[in-house]
């Protein structure tokens, strides 16, 4: 792999406009990645999902240079119907279209800035890989007191013409004071067996609101890692929803720092998995100051060799008195071949806090099925009704009603 990395790395800045300084910084990250390699299960955070083994088994050797000099056509069928939207479309890692037709142009700024972030390079080696190979890095700034009129949808589309086995993406958002953004990430893949490594960074200023919905429901054989870092200031709010069911492997990792008083973070997610899929959500919510709040709810339905992992951590620093932290994960295992692993973790250094977590897993309740069947449903209907009720519980947590019904429709859950 080392040889390939070095060759591809040379190629990656031949046609690009990076400054020598940037190239040197990137080189540093590359060397760091070469030294550490892909994360494996000897690392605590990757204990349940050994990505190094998974890539080896599913993809084999990776290639890293993603040539994005030539444009591709956008297949119009990828767009979400029935939603007025702003959109950014990535095709095979190349930004093909940026469209903010519903917004006031002077209220937002799109910078093609290149800011490699050293702060997160210690979290895991995939961030170093991202830093070394990422080609374009957008920074989208939403100005003070401006609320997005329509949601922004980012389409992550790949097809068979992709030029590399590994795609690295990077997006930065800055929400200035009292602004708000609704962001939907749609992962839509027609490519096979690629490793897609995405890094999101959000800075949410005072009184700003971010709502982020990550949707991965289309079946595909790609392996994905999405790291989301959220920095929150006073009175800010972040809501993250993850629908995890399409890719063969996906790990969503969320690191959220509650830096300002009265800031709050909500993470909700559903896993609906079958056919040997292996998905993971790992969260790390860091309560760093007083009066902060967080809540997490993850529900999974698994069948047919599927495996779901939830690692959730609530960290409360000694300064963060009056913290309210809550975390719950529930799983239904539909047959013998499935596996659910959880590690709900509390790390608390302050005494005046309210923190709790719960985790439960088991089979469908036979009594409930009996109840429904005695009222005229057949077994299959009864089962489906129970499962959709179980998952709807999470979807009901979505605070935006338009997006809520859209997601319900996309997932195919009846009310």
């Amino acid at each position, binding site marked *: 792999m080392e040889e390939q990395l070095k060759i591809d790395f040379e190629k990656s800045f031949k046609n690009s406009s990076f400054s020598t300084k940037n190239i040197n910084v990137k080189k540093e990250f590359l060397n760091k990645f070469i030294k550490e390699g892909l994360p494996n299960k000897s690392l*605590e955070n990757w204990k349940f999902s050994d990505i190094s083994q998974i890539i080896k088994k599913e993809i084999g050797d990776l290639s890293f240079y993603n040539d994005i000099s030539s444009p591709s056509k956008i297949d119009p069928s990828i767009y979400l119907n029935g939603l007025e939207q702003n959109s950014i479309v990535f095709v095979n890692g190349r930004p093909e279209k940026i469209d903010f037709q519903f917004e006031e142009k002077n209220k937002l700024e799109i910078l093609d800035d290149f800011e490699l972030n050293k702060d997160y390079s210690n979290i895991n080696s995939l961030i170093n890989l991202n830093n070394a190979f990422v080609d374009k890095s957008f920074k989208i700034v939403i100005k003070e007191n401006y609320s997005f009129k329509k949601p922004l949808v980012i389409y992550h589309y790949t097809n068979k013409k992709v030029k590399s086995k590994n795609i690295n993406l990077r997006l930065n958002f800055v929400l200035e004071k009292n602004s708000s953004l609704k962001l939907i990430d749609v992962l839509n893949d027609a490519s096979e067996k690629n490793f897609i490594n995405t890094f999101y960074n959000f800075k949410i200023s005072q009184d700003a609101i971010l709502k982020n919905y990550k949707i991965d429901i289309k079946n595909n054989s790609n392996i994905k890692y999405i790291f989301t870092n959220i920095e929150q200031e006073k009175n800010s709010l972040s809501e993250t929803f993850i629908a995890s069911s399409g890719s063969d492997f996906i790990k969503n990792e969320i690191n959220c720092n509650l830096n300002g008083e009265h800031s709050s973070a909500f993470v909700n997610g559903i896993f609906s998995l079958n056919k040997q899929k292996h998905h993971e959500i790992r969260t790390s919510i860091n309560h760093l100051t007083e009066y902060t709040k967080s809540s997490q709810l993850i529900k999974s339905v698994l069948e047919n060799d599927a495996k779901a992992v939830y690692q959730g951590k609530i960290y409360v620093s*000694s300064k963060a*008195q009056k913290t309210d932290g809550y975390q719950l994960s529930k*799983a239904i*295992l*539909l*047959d*013998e071949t*499935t*596996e*659910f*692993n*959880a*590690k*709900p*973790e*509390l*790390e*608390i*250094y*302050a*005494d*005046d*806090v*309210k*923190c*709790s*977590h*719960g*985790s*439960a*897993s*088991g*089979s469908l309740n036979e009594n409930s099925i009996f109840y429904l069947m005695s009222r005229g449903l057949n077994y299959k209907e009864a089962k489906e009704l129970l499962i959709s009720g179980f998952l709807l519980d999470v979807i009901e947590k979505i605070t935006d009603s338009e997006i809520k019904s859209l997601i319900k429709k996309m997932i195919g859950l009846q009310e």
Partner: protein
Amino acid sequence: MKIESSQTSREKEIENLKKYKYGFSTDIESTKAPKGLSEEVIKFISNIKKEPQWLLDWRLKAYYRLKALKEPNWQKPKYPKIDYQDLYYYSAPKSFKEKPKSLDDLDPKLLETYKKLGIPLQEQKRLNNIAVDAVFDSVSVATTFKDKLTEKGIIFCSISEAVQKHPELVKKYLGSVIPLTDHFFATLNSAVFTDGSFVYVPPGVRCPMELSTYFRINASDTGQFERTLIIADKGSYVSYLEGCTAPMRDENQLHAANVELVALDDAEIKYSTVQNWYPGDKDGKGGIYNFVTKRGLCKGKNSKISWTQVETGSAITWKYPSCILKGDNSIGEFYSIAITNNHQKADTGTKMIHLGKNTKSKIISKGISAGFSDMTYRGLVDISKKANNSRNYTQCDSLLMGNKCGAHTIPYIKNKNSDSNLAHEATTSKISEEQLHYCQQRGLNSEEAVGLIVNGFCKEVLQQLPMEFAVEAQKLVGISLEGSVG
């Protein structure tokens, strides 16, 4: 001026004595093996204990294995590197070269020590219905109540005695739950273990009394590596209790014991620990490193193993008493109170490994941290594919006193069986002002009030202890938290 200073030093002395009641060291000459870990030392230990060849080979195998192993470092409380070549691996009171025949032959000074500890052997023999096996440094001193147990066919003796007298049992079960190659500290213990208790309860026998061991580290620079092996044959029952203390010393001492329990069909083992090793002084200097491997195997159908622990001592406690639920319908239980104060650190919990059908486990863990201490619950519940209809219930509650301490919960939950149910709950809170106020209104001072509330918080676990020890443990809980309020 002079008088004043001597007075303060005297006061200090008294204060020190108050703090750790068991912090005295007995002046008894002891035989030590040469310092350091080597083949010679292991041969020396084996030789002095007149062990058969197979055991020496077993020890050496562990020693070679150890060379390939690395000390684990994933635990939360970090500690300075231990120099394993700077420890004594064997230390026995000198007067022991010729084994005493009865309690009356014991060195009077030794007996004095136990009296100070609060376990006067003779008295207990007379008054209490408890058989005591006391381990002093590394050698088992005397086992009381032998006759009464022999009558029932129960074997309760030191493990060195068992090696001589019941080699077939030891050979069969030693290392069957904690294999030689398990992990660094377990392997270290296998190579150098010096003594410990051995219990065998024959089929269908209900042990008529609580069996009890008292451990004490006396000599400085010694590690204590005892090995306990308890076998409950078909349909039997035994309840076993261990207590631990150590003198106050500035340096850290290592305690790496291995405890193996085997429960055959329909058998039940109840294992209780009251651990009060020296926790180090107020500034975190000295104290015991308590790195113990405890594991029980529910080998037979309908067997049950129950761990109860009250952990109040040690500078660092790092242990996970575990149950392997192999037999169908077997039950594993874990009840724990862990209290850390000053600079103590604890990383403790349990592992419940469900392999058999209809297996059940229950985990109740109560953690209390005060001062500058750090307390972690780390547990694993693993339900394998074949463990149909298994159940687990886990509850871990933490209580924090002050904002200089930490309380952490790290449960690992693995479920591979759709037929099984798992539930986990955890909460963290502090003692509320209202609760304190309520108690104080009724005439308790703040320290008593905290004691009362904490005892209430721990009650679920304390109830699991045998009666005599529940009272002692309750007191211990109070003592450990002294000075942490206000």
